[in-house]
């Protein structure tokens, strides 16, 4: 069926306009739902959701607590650091619940876009790991000085005639290339793009008993999944740096207190969400218990709720009531 | 080259008024740097030589002629000889490279865009070889288009459009779309559209080429009526010699962009300037164009001199019956002056083409 386009466009737009007008005046379900919930007290806010499973646990717990207290929360998956900071400056993100990047947000803080809210209680430690079967079979591989001895074993079609050194994703704190060159290692850094890829590398290596050397970090549940992984960290000389940009590459990664960041807008508000974010603080064990549940197939919402139900005192303290 | 004196001598009608259309030294050259050709020695080259030398095509080269008010001026020529380009230059749909075009004494090449639009809206209209109908409009709205852009109200312009629809015999098709019509019907829509604004001058580019013989004859009659009764001036392009003879007061023959000869049909048939023109007019039934003047000859001693007297400007075809019936040669005289005699053998010889 067809008749003049003009008429049809006219018909479509008249009906659409009519519908909008009617929709505007008619009473609807949401008005009633609205007055009951009291959403206006907390407001609507956005949490950045970074893509490692520890972050998912922390972000989800904070989101669930906030929702239970009348906040409208949007969870937005975003790359870490610069992208997220810009989003905070643009007003589309309000909270980063776990940032590893020792001060790289300074510029945004100076501009008044971001407020540092302090530690979240987790302590992060990055390192280079081999699958536990290797640690058992070649105990001396855990000393970085011996890595070159085994370099040939790590060759892949992507690393050519050097060993493959699986490096962390772009937004993470990584100094792999520096470590390789400073320690004169016969390895080639291969970018992986995501935590999931690193998980994949180590899991497959352990399962198939193939060699692999990969970037990883605590807190994280991979250490629960792969027994003995925590002990399979290759040790470099003791850490002597905190700013990755100034690291020599000779020494290992530092232990880092993980930070919370929030938008100025949130911190200036009297929202209960600001209080929750300010007070949120938990241990690596707390986070691991939630991530382990997610890892084992629970939905993040359920896993977070389970922890909240099991820890009413901590939650109460965060809400500040 | 152009025969200036011919065209001048031929414009017989309505002396005193300026020509309806007057063309002087008109050029249209396509290609790189066209202006440099006009007036240079290259201008005398033939079209193919010019093309080989400069890469330019002279679609119209150095054309001059006058069309008297109320005259039907026919342009003929082989395909590619520049007829369509010429007629487009007259209305400035194509900007001439050089030369002047006067419409009713007004130099159209100097007209501002507004003035040009005014002229196009009120003074003249065109019928196109390829019809140029608007595919998204019904027949009636196609015909009403020139009225519409003139700001005429819908009811009024539709009434006028319906009149011309009747005129061209498209009754019942006013709500059809061009692509639903046959070529001939589309051509008549184009004609009706040109007539809708009732212009003084009509430019017709092969207006009847797609018509069947019957409708074509009707349309030719319509053109003749417009010409005779309403005194419209027309520049009429056609490939059909008999049509040219039928509707045209004078005919211009073009070759390779230039006008070879201009004259009445009789002049062309009687005195073709070269083989090209002679070839062109060869197929005309001479008896249809020539007058008795052409056949008149001195009487031979044994011939009767007491046959009836006929006027010299009588077409031979029309005189033939009388001549063949009288069994005597007729006497031909012009303004009382005796020119000679014409016998029935003379007429038969001409009709059978032996002459």
């Amino acid at each position, binding site marked *: 069926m067809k008749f003049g386009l003009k008429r049809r466009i006219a018909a479509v737009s008249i009906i659409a306009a009519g519908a909008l007008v009617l929709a505007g005046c008619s009473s609807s379900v949401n008005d009633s739902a609205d007055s009951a919930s009291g959403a206006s007290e907390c407001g609507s806010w956005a949490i950045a959701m970074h893509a490692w499973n520890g972050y998912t646990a922390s972000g989800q717990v904070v989101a669930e607590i906030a929702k239970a207290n009348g906040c409208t929360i949007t969870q937005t998956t975003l790359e870490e650091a610069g992208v997220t900071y810009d989003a905070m400056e643009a007003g589309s993100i309000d909270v980063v619940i776990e940032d590893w990047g020792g001060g790289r947000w300074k510029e945004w803080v100076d501009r008044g876009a971001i407020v540092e809210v302090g530690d979240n209680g987790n302590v992060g430690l990055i390192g280079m790991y081999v699958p536990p079967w290797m640690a058992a079979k070649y105990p001396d591989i855990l000393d970085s000085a011996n890595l070159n001895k085994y370099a040939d074993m790590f060759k892949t079609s992507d690393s050519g005639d050097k060993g493959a050194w699986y490096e962390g994703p772009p937004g993470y704190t990584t100094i792999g290339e520096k470590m390789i060159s400073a320690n004169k290692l016969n390895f080639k850094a291969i970018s992986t793009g995501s935590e999931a890829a690193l998980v994949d590398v180590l899991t497959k290596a352990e399962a198939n008993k193939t060699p692999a050397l990969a970037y990883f970090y605590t807190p994280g549940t991979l250490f629960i999944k792969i027994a003995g992984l925590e002990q399979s960290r290759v040790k470099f000389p003791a850490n002597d740096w905190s700013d990755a940009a100034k690291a020599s590459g000779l020494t290992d990664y530092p232990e880092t207190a993980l930070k919370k960041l929030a938008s100025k807008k949130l911190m200036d508000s009297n929202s209960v969400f600001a209080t929750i974010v300010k007070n949120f603080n938990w241990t690596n064990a707390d986070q691991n218990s939630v991530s382990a549940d997610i890892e084992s197939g629970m939905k993040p919402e359920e896993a977070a709720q389970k922890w909240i139900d099991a820890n009413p005192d901590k939650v109460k303290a965060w809400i500040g009531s | 080259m152009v025969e200036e004196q011919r065209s001048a001598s031929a414009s017989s009608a309505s002396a005193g008024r300026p020509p309806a259309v007057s063309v002087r030294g008109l050029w249209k050259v396509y290609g790189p740097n066209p202006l440099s050709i006009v007036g240079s020695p290259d201008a005398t080259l033939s079209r193919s030589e010019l093309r080989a030398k400069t890469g330019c095509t002279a679609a119209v080269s150095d054309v001059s002629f006058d069309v008297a008010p109320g005259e039907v001026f026919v342009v003929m020529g082989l395909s590619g000889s520049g007829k369509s380009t010429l007629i487009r230059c007259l209305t400035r749909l194509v900007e001439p490279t050089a030369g002047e075009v006067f419409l009713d004494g007004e130099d159209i090449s100097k007209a501002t865009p507004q003035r040009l*639009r005014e002229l196009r809206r009120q003074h003249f209209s065109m019928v196109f070889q390829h019809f140029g109908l608007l595919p998204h409009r019904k027949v009636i709205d196609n015909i009403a288009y020139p009225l519409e852009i003139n700001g005429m109200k819908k009811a009024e312009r539709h009434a006028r459009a319906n009149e011309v629809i009747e005129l061209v015999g498209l009754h019942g098709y006013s709500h059809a779309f061009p692509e639903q019509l046959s070529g001939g019907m589309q051509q008549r829509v184009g004609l009706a559209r040109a007539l809708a604004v009732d212009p003084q001058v009509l430019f017709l580019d092969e207006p009847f080429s797609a018509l069947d013989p019957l409708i074509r004859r009707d349309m030719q009659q319509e053109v003749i009526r417009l010409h005779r009764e309403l005194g419209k001036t027309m520049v009429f392009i056609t490939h059909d010699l008999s049509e040219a003879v039928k509707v045209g007061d004078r005919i211009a023959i073009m070759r390779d962009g230039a006008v070879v000869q201009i004259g009445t049909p009789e002049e062309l048939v009687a005195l073709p300037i070269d083989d090209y023109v002679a070839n062109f007019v060869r197929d005309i039934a001479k008896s249809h164009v020539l007058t008795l003047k052409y056949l008149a000859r001195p009487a031979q001693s044994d011939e009767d001199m007491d046959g009836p007297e006929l006027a010299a400007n009588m077409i031979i075809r029309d005189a033939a019956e009388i001549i063949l019936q009288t069994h005597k040669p007729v006497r031909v005289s012009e303004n009382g002056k005796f020119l000679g005699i014409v016998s029935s053998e003379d007429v038969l010889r001409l009709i059978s083409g032996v002459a």
Partner: protein
Amino acid sequence: MTHLKKSHLLIGVGLVWITLSRIFQGNQTLELATSENTSFTSSVGDAAASIRGNRTKSAAFIYFFNPIRAAITGFVEIIRSIISVPSGNSIIPVIGWFGVVAIVAFTVYATSRLRTAILAVSLLLACGALGMWQFTMDTLAMTLASVLLSLLVGIPVGIWAGRSDRVLKILTPFLDLAQILPTLVYLAPLALFFLIGTASATIATMVYSIPIAIRITAHAIRNLNQSPIEAALSMGSTPTQTLTKVQLPMAKQMIILGINQTVMAALSFVVIAALIGAPGLGKPVVDALIIRNVGQGFVAGFAVVFVAILLDRSTSAAAKAQESFIPLTSQQIRRGRIKVGLSGLLAIASIFASRSVLSLAVWPGSINISQQVEDVTNHATKWITTNLYIFTVGFKDFISNWVLNPLETLLAFSPWFVTLSAIVFIAAVIGGMRVAMLATGLLTLIVLSGLWHEAMITLTQTIVATLLTMAIGITLGIWVGRSSSAEKVLRPFLDAGQTLPAFVYLIPMLGLFGPTRFTAIATGIVYSIPVVVKIVSEGIRSVPIAMIEAATVAGSTVRQIITKVQLPAAKRSILLATNQGMIFVLAVVVIGGFVGSGGLGYLVILGGSKPEMQGKGLVAGFAILLLGVTIDRIAQASARRT
């Protein structure tokens, strides 16, 4: 230059190149550690930092960028609040899901026909059933907003370019460049000025789709049958009258096709723009890529595919409805009007319902098959990766060891001047002197940017992917070009393939090949095959029948006809297809930076994440652009010379 000489010269260049590469292996490769900056990249970084620093201070931001950002964000948010996010104080959008379905059904029905409307509704419901309702609505809202804004700019400019040669001439280089520029490159510079969020995403999408709208509109105006236009002029139409009463109505169908193309471009970009904060289906896709959940990626990917088909079918059906100017009989028109009127009333009633019944307002959570789809996909992926490990990894390793690595050694690990000269020589042989000079200039700029080594890594992947693409694409193209039944079978896939955002293809490839260079290459191949097959098959089909008949009569075998008649005659199409294929592949290979392909794409992504690397990221984006132009010019010139 004769054919024989050309190939001899190329072989010569190759041999010299390989020899020099062996001798100087690893010297002067301009390798730069990922975390290192050159003085140039760090000064670009400083410039970027100072731009960032001025966001709250400088007049350009206060009076220009920030208001634009606010206005566009506001515009998008209005559309989102109508169909996607809670509006005002309420907990649901102005129009609930049922209302949206009704509106889509009505609009498609009114502009094309019932069958298309049913298809559209089913696709929309499928998105809902995949648990992607709100993401889908966000994507629709973003696409709608960007398309409206793009057309607002693109159609008038296109009309202008259609009517003025000068305007077209000025615009052409930009339009050409826009066709080469990989999507990833747009994001970072825009984010610098418009930050991260819907505004940046919308503007980036506009920048991507406006050239398409301009190009097609100008083309539509220019390629009209000129005789009605001339007739209109002869009757004294003003330019405006000619435009509105003649040109635009005549160009209508083509312009609607242009809208179709603009919509598809906008959709594919909106998905990628999730990287700079665009709401919508891109988010779960990116999410899935980051957490490597192939199943989740498939769920979101299916939704993207459904939205793509929905938008493509409904807009092209609307264009098809414009094919003829002839309307139906007045009775049919009346009946049509009654139908449209009734369905309109039904739509309004549905909108009402969607505002007063909660289950019609919010997509019922119980209707959700995402988990099942996810599980099935993950199982399938797992089965493939464990059981077909030999094939997938074997194939990957084979290509990596025997093609990728040697070529990478040659391109990226020869001294830079050796590689540069070799490329310039090749350009000279196949494209001529002028292109060789252009290539010298462009490649020198890449050297100066400091990212030569990375650029060569990206180029290597692009070349390998293109070679494989052409091998598959030409074979399929010949098949499709020679057999109309093959064409019937493949055409829907080719059409669908061309409308999908490149991002979506990354997901299954990531599942098969893991985070490696090869994932990017495989994605590039899959993404660019449709366009290559299309161009090649058209070339094959355009070989005159008479030529083939003559060859057949002369006793040629099928193989001889293909190799001796059809392929040589279709050579130009094949070269053009190679060009298109390379440009498509390049766009995907750089996105592969996400899944471990390294090279320039990785630097662009790194620049987005790490503030101290932003300069390097921006320069990498520029280097991608230079690489794209170099490839395009050389390929174009070689196609022109045949």
